[in-house]
């Protein structure tokens, strides 16, 4: 690990000023990914700005009936929060599907969004990787890519974003709150992460010097049910091969609100707009769910060894939608 200086500011403005004054500095929250990447030689910031002393860890209801989750709120605390469990079960389940209890006790909301891909070539500093060393190439395309992307990848990068939490937030229409030298702005979670294109080194639309201060969720649609389901290589403590977050309302046998997002398939949480188009207003039947999933996954371009993800994601989506609809039909 490269030597670095360390500061622990108590005010958000001070943290942002510190960052601006030191090129290459990084904010540190839970550190569960950043410290690991520093050990691996993938990250080597000259300065760590510890943001755990900033007043950014609250989870509280908003005036609009939604929920604000501070950037340094721990994954375990958010997952166990009564309002999250009752109103946003997909978020609680997604958090609990991620990592281990020890990691969730340290990992934060902001850090979860900013975690890097677990593509083995990105994490191995001795290998080429366009995300880590732009222009060096992508060995994953022809190499080990069973866990990697089937949607939205490019010739330059086939990495997946590993977060479970972000998939649920995308389906819940959450927004990321950012603060930087130029002030504050919000970005929908579904637009916060980028597709790789020819700039796979940029995971998100965050600007240099901006700090995530929190995530805001709107009030859930009336009568909505949500869920998160994840398929992985072992029963627990593994990244998603594919996952689904869904939020649904059903009335008189027809679907009203429908939000669907896939994880483990792309460089970003994949909000399934084409599937949602099929779902809205359609009969709540298995046939509808299959058509919806197929409409979204028609765009899939599997690599040599990850074609299994397409039927896996389809079956996950169909089963989650079926389970949600059978629990939400207000006539039932």
């Amino acid at each position, binding site marked *: *690990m490269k*030597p*670095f*200086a*360390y*500061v*622990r500011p108590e005010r958000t403005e001070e943290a942002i000023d510190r960052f601006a004054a030191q090129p290459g500095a990084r904010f*540190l929250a839970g*550190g*569960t990914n950043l*410290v*690991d990447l*520093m*050990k*691996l030689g993938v990250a080597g910031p000259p*300065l*760590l700005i*510890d943001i*755990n*002393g900033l007043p950014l860890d609250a989870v509280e209801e908003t005036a609009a009936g939604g929920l604000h989750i501070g950037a340094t709120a721990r994954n*375990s605390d958010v*997952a*166990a929060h*009564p309002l999250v*469990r*009752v109103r946003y*079960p997909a978020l*609680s*389940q997604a958090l*609990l*599907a991620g*990592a*281990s*209890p*020890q*990691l969730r*006790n*340290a990992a934060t909301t902001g850090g979860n969004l900013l975690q890097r891909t677990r593509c083995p070539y990105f994490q191995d500093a001795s290998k080429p990787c366009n995300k880590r060393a732009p222009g060096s190439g992508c060995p994953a395309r022809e190499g080990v890519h069973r866990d990697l992307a089937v949607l939205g990848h490019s010739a330059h990068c086939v990495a997946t974003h590993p977060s479970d939490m972000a998939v649920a937030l995308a389906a819940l229409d959450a927004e990321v709150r950012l603060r930087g030298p130029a002030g504050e702005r919000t970005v929908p979670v579904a637009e916060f992460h980028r597709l790789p294109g020819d700039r796979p080194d940029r995971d998100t639309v965050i600007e240099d010097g901006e700090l995530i201060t929190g995530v805001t969720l709107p009030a859930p649609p009336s009568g909505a049910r949500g*869920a998160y389901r994840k398929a992985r290589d072992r*029963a*627990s*403590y593994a990244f998603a091969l594919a996952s689904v977050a869904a939020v649904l309302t059903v009335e008189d046998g027809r679907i009203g609100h429908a939000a669907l997002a896939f994880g483990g398939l792309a460089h970003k949480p994949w909000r399934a707009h084409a599937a949602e188009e099929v779902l809205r207003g359609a009969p709540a039947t298995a046939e509808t769910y299959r058509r919806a999933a197929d409409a979204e996954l028609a765009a899939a371009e599997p690599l040599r060894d990850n074609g299994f993800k397409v039927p896996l994601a389809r079956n996950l989506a169909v089963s989650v939608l079926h389970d949600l609809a059978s629990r939400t039909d207000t006539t039932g």
Partner: protein
Amino acid sequence: MEPVDRTAPAGETPEGAPEAVSTLTLRVNGTARTLTVDNRTTLLDALRDHLDLTGSKKGCDHGQCGACTVLLDGRRVNSCLLLAVVCAGASVTTVEGLSDGDRLHPVQEAFVARDALQCGYCTPGQICSAVALLHEAADGQPSYVTPPERSPDGPVSLTPEEIRERMSGNICRCGAYPNIVDAIEEAAR
């Protein structure tokens, strides 16, 4: 729990340029310990190499195996992924701090009674993790296998399925899992 002193580490030189070394105080197993460490030092290395507490083990050193699990302000964490400097002012409980003199912690007793280990390398982490697990379940914290429709109030009952899911962050290469689950069930009674 008594309030902890969150004194900022000495990270600044008189000129204002940050240094790569910090001095910090940790309350380890009830005793305040002050140490000066390179900022790169993890909590695990601080415990093992600076404080001679070698109960916490270095398995993978990447947060994947759980052998380094300790309690930080009462919560289980992977000490290999936490920088010591970030823990300044916090209370740390390691496996050495669980027993009451010669009297083992009930989780330690149960691991002995149920023969919940073979080589023993992962055991300190398993035990620290299990101690926290009991508190989390008693506190009503859900896991991925807790039925989502369950009310957020009241303790979660620790079925073998719950124990396996909640212990998934602790790997045992000897495969002592069945007896580990038995031991935790016994300690939960």
